[in-house]
């Protein structure tokens, strides 16, 4: 399929020139095309932030909700209609800061959705405050002395939560990122893809060069089924591994567990209430019984 299918034509994109978001957007379109995803079956869900504008720049269904709240609607959308491909795409502040609680519990819930996080280690849209992944020492208008808080390690936390698929990419490596996106989307169950994304305006520390110099790819010696090994890799700091860290033993998805699609694959919008059962239910409250 041609990636042009996902093109919205001549639209105004609100990102800064040179921003790492462009690469992610382009790569995602290509990944989707290679996976032959039909735009009419694709729902892009996001929160609020610079990254969270991405769904507007793609031809697909869009649910652009509240800051930090992409995962709950994404989970529900998939559950209400499992035939849709659902991608929740947002920024690091959105997903790990405001949305941190949903991040944890969505992983536990394991819906079959893909979670792409543009990790620029900063709050872009609100002008450069620290995000949960900001490195210690990063000076910002609010973190005047530099960041003090231990950076949030999404990969390690996701592994600790036994996420069903955990990977990390670097936006500028478009080919490898595309492969990781394809794996994440194709994966059945919750898939986290944390993507290093240079913010050329507000993060002068984690630049294209920095990411290049401070990352490497996991090779075959790493077994993504080994949770402890994956965790150890996730803790590496000097050079940050990229690739698939962890794939958990297969487990049922949220939609599977809901049970109602086992015999009847119809999405909820096609269903009607069972009036006979309702009548029975009401009758079960009859005073005489």
């Amino acid at each position, binding site marked *: 399929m041609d990636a042009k299918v996902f093109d919205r034509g001549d639209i105004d994109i609100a990102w800064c020139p040179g921003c790492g978001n462009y690469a992610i957007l382009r790569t995602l379109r290509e990944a989707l095309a290679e996976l032959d995803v039909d735009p009419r079956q694709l729902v892009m869900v996001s929160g609020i932030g610079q990254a969270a504008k991405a769904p507007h720049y793609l031809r697909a269904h869009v649910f652009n*909700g509240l800051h930090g709240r992409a995962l709950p*609607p994404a989970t529900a*959308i998939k559950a*209400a209609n499992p035939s849709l491909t659902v991608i929740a795409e947002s920024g690091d502040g959105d997903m790990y800061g405001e949305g941190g609680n949903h991040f944890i519990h969505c992983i536990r819930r394991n819906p079959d959705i893909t979670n792409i996080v543009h990790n620029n280690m900063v709050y872009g849209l609100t002008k450069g405050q620290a995000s949960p992944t900001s490195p210690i020492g990063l000076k910002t208008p609010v973190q005047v002395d530099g960041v003090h808080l231990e950076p949030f390690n999404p990969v390690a936390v996701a592994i600790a939560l036994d996420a069903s698929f955990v990977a990390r990419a670097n936006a500028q490596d478009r080919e490898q990122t595309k492969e990781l996106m394809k794996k994440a989307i194709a994966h059945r169950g919750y898939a986290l893809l944390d993507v290093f994304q240079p913010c050329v305006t507000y993060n002068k520390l984690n630049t294209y060069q920095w990411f290049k110099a401070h990352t490497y790819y996991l090779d075959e010696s790493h077994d993504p089924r080994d949770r402890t090994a994956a965790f150890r890799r996730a803790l590496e700091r000097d050079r940050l591994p990229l690739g698939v860290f962890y794939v958990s033993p297969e487990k049922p998805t949220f939609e599977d567990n809901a049970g109602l699609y086992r015999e009847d694959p119809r*999405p*909820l919008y096609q269903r009607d209430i069972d009036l006979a059962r309702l009548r029975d239910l009401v009758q079960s409250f009859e005073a005489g019984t």
Partner: protein
Amino acid sequence: MGSAMRDRSNGDISVVLCGQAGQGVQTVEFLLTRLMSRAGYQVFATKEYMSRIRGGANSTTIRVSDRPVAGAVDRIDLLIPLNEGAVEHVVSRISARTVVLGERQITGDVPVLRACTFFDVPFTAIASAIGNKLYSNVVAVGAIAGLLGIGAEHLRASVRHFFAGKPSGVVEDNVRAADEGYAAVAKVDLPHELTLSEPNRVPARGELLLNGGEAVGMGAIAGGCNFVSSYPMSPSTPVLTFLAQQAKNFGTIVEQAEDEIAAVNMAIGAWYAGARALVTTSGGGFALMTEGLSLAGMLESPLVIHLAQRPGPATGLPTRTEQADLEMAVYAGHGEFPRIILAPGTLADGFHLTQRAFDLADKYQVPVFILTDQYYIDSYYSTPAFELSRIGVEKHIVNTSRDYRRYESGATGVSPRGVPGYGEGLVVVDSDEHDEEGHITEDAQLRVRMVDKRLAKGVSLLRDAVPPELVGPPDYRNLVICWGSTYHAVKEAVSRLERDDTAMLHYRQVYPVPADTADYLRRAERTVIVEGNATAQFGQLLHLQAGIAVTHQVLNYDGLGFSVERILHRLRDILA
């Protein structure tokens, strides 16, 4: 008939059970109400309980009558204290005419009881003799049944029914317990005025016995609800539990969210994908949903919220009742967007309004509230069969064409709503201000049009407003106004006033206030608002919408809610 007589008319007996949490008060209540109901009486039961799992002091008030009864009363005709301290817990409600059925050994010598008739029945000893102290509750049920003159066969059948599925030894032990309790009071008679007349009816066909939580839960199912995301919170949890229990039967997805924020955002996502979603919560949980409410306003997403009130602020009194979250429901969420707030009064309302809430939400693409409270959720009474023949889901989803635009403009403000995957179009919704397609915009003129569009729905939806119900003479001089759960108590109080110049006006849609309100208010010389809060919130809303201030207030905010007597008493004062 004098009012004192009426208060204790033998057509209506008030039985109060009082004990610790976990002591089985609920078993007694359940058995007794079913038993009386099956014997042909009408019953009403309401409970008050502490926010704890064991211990403390809880009570249930059961009214038994040969006529419909559905309001809480203070007076106790027959008291069954099940533990030490039980009498103290309800002491203010005891009068010399209260008859006590209990174990003197447990109750002790409480001064207030000295004036009362006391039937001392050794429940525990009887139960132990049968083989288990736990049977003492059933002994009590037997004794109560005996006192109230229920046939022993009815009693046995009920006990058997209740314990059906347990090992037969247990069933038979319990039947024996009931029998022995029954026998223990064989020799005694209740005072004449507490004697129930023979029920003049068998249960009407399809007559139901259920509580508010069940009415709302079934209403949701009738409304086509197939997605529930919520976080437990008293007193809203029974609706969640009910729907979870029924989930398999009706193909409902019921998910306990990590918090209320997730719950409401899931529900909105579910509606987006074509589900009919409900959240059920209480004040503090709803406070956390208010950003999500605003999201529904902006996305023009349907949403149904069951908000069961309890006393606040903050954690307040988790298991008590109040009507103080009305203003929050009316004004919650930043920015301006329409909404509908329905407040069931009767159990039938709980069913039909909840059912309707889903259709209204879908039709106007607005959030619709079902505003109840702990009193409503936990009270039950005998009610005529629900009208099911016209139940059917009004779906408002369109098949989209290639050029579909989610926010196409039109006079009513309502745009056809598509869902992803149904049709050729793309469904784009955005919490930012957006264009007709749904994409983010900062165009000032478009902004104005979109605000106008959203607010236009607030006018359109008035067409489907649920009118208030006037009970009493249309040429009233005094108008007693109430809303939501106080329906029955106020109705009974007003009827007991026996004044042909006084009527009651009950609102089951509290927002937007139906248009004829000013007419109703203008016709009255005195208007009395009866509300379960400290600041007359609905009175304020009426003032705002109808331009007329109510003249008198009857407020309650002690957490226990209104009784018929307290309303009556206050109304008598005001209307004297």
